[in-house]
């Protein structure tokens, strides 16, 4: 476990009084994992991210990073911890009057690392991120995607154990978003870097996250594997994401029994439905279906109508082999 957050509390004071931003939030991140922090704007996502390297001091609670409780450390000790945690901000925050090369080398230069070593490390990272031809450009001359990668390069150059990403895709177009997510996954797999990603972009969650922490009004409403989060979304327990599927009235009246079924993992590829239907001699009618590729396996939603004498038996059998089953009517 690289990061363990226990009972974090944070509140801000303003004219209208005390506002609770984080309310007893506890979560943990394993080494080499990608964890997503999701929630509506104002749910406390970014505040939570900022507490993780103490940019935002907390009221109470503990943050164990790499076995060390970093809450209440002296300022000089905090600085040392921060050097092990890379942060890529939503607005990238590159130095405006430094070239891309100078931006990427900056964290190394302030640590007094030898010039030769800096050059080698920076060239390797720039090449890996496809920035090698832009090193002399100033931030204002770079595209959004390039600025984003520059910010990632600047975080990588410190050889961090963990990188915090704040809304990494909010400023990118869909194509650049795709490339960025591939990059995050490949950095995670190749270098074993742990990522904590604040986002409200479903694509980020689907394609990169192993686990998801869902914040609502400063409280941790859910923390678990990504597919379980999707079950919650499909079951309409997460009002902020997606909207409930509304079936056409005609369909409802034409079918005697309607089931909503969620699949996850390797079973998604097997003809489970067909097998069980055949065994129980029922007719099935597929009303709706979709499969999403999550990082930890395919996730399918299916709505089917069932007809036949043994339909109750069919439902019982099916329930055993799928992730979730609900009788709609």
């Amino acid at each position, binding site marked *: 476990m690289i990061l363990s957050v226990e009972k974090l509390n944070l509140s801000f004071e303003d004219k209208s009084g005390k506002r609770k931003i984080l309310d007893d939030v506890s979560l943990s991140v394993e080494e080499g994992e990608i964890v997503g922090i999701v929630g509506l704007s104002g749910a406390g996502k970014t505040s939570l991210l*900022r507490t993780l*390297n103490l*940019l935002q001091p907390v009221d109470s609670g503990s943050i164990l990073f790499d076995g060390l409780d970093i809450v209440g450390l002296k300022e*000089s000790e905090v*600085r*040392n*911890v*921060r*050097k092990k*945690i890379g*942060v890529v*901000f*939503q*607005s*990238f*925050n590159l*130095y*405006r*009057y*430094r070239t891309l090369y100078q931006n990427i080398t*900056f*964290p190394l230069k*302030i640590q007094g690392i030898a010039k030769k070593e800096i050059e080698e490390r920076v060239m390797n990272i720039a090449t890996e991120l496809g920035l090698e031809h832009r090193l002399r450009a*100033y*931030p*204002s*001359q770079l595209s959004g995607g390039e600025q984003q990668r520059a*910010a990632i390069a600047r975080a990588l150059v*410190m050889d961090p154990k963990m990188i915090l990403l704040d809304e990494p895709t909010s400023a990118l177009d869909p194509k650049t978003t795709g490339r960025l997510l591939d990059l995050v996954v490949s950095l995670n797999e190749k270098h074993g870097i742990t990522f904590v990603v604040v986002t409200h972009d479903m694509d980020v969650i689907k394609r990169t996250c192993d686990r998801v922490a869902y914040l609502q009004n400063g409280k941790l409403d859910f923390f678990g594997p990504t597919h379980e989060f999707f079950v919650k979304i499909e079951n309409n327990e997460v009002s902020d994401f997606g909207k409930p599927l509304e079936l056409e009235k005609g369909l409802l009246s034409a079918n005697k029994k309607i089931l909503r079924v969620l699949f996850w993992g390797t079973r998604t590829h097997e003809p489970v439905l067909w097998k069980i239907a055949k065994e129980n001699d029922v007719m099935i009618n597929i009303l709706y279906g979709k499969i999403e590729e999550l990082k930890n396996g395919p996730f399918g939603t299916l709505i089917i109508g069932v007809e036949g004498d043994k339909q109750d038996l069919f439902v019982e059998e099916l329930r055993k082999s799928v992730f979730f089953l609900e009788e709609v009517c």
Partner: protein
Amino acid sequence: MLSQIFNATLETLYMLLLSGFLATSLGIPLGVGLYLCSRSRGLKGLYALLDLLVNIFRSIPFIILVLLLIPVTKQVMGTIIGPNAAIFNLTIAAIPFMARLSENSFNGVPSGIIDSSNSMGLNRWQMVTRVLIPETLPDQIGNVTVLLINLVTYTAIAGAVGAGGLGQLAINYGYYRFQWDVVFYAVIVLVAISQFLQFTGGRLARRLRK
């Protein structure tokens, strides 16, 4: 007359550049101090005090400040007339001005850049020398330009109380002896100096601003 104007111009430039240099090299650190105090919870009191001092010094009209400073000037410089005494007065007047200008520029650095610098583990000294100053460099060039142009006016005012330079020339020959051509030439040189400063400063700032 021409040699008088030439000598007066040299005196004005001497006062201008030296007081400008001193005010910049003392004013920017004071500006850094103001900025850091305003952002540190424990130093709000110190900030209030510095802020008040800066405001007081900036609101005293220069000619009155010169009069008020006479005993101090005499102690420090040994005299109250001539360019060197004027440089002392000009510097005292310009430091709070420069401090305020630079503080405003520091406040203009996007908070995200401060955050990301903090997240890299910079200490306070590195924050000032590697982030605050470089990130405000074009603005600070603009500030120094404004400062110097203000000092051009101040040197002329100082000339009225014995500082020498173009201001004194204009008053002694023009105002008291009705030699309006001297006033005219003095003004032309002063305007030319201001224009040159504005042009050079503006160009430099633009070149640094990427």
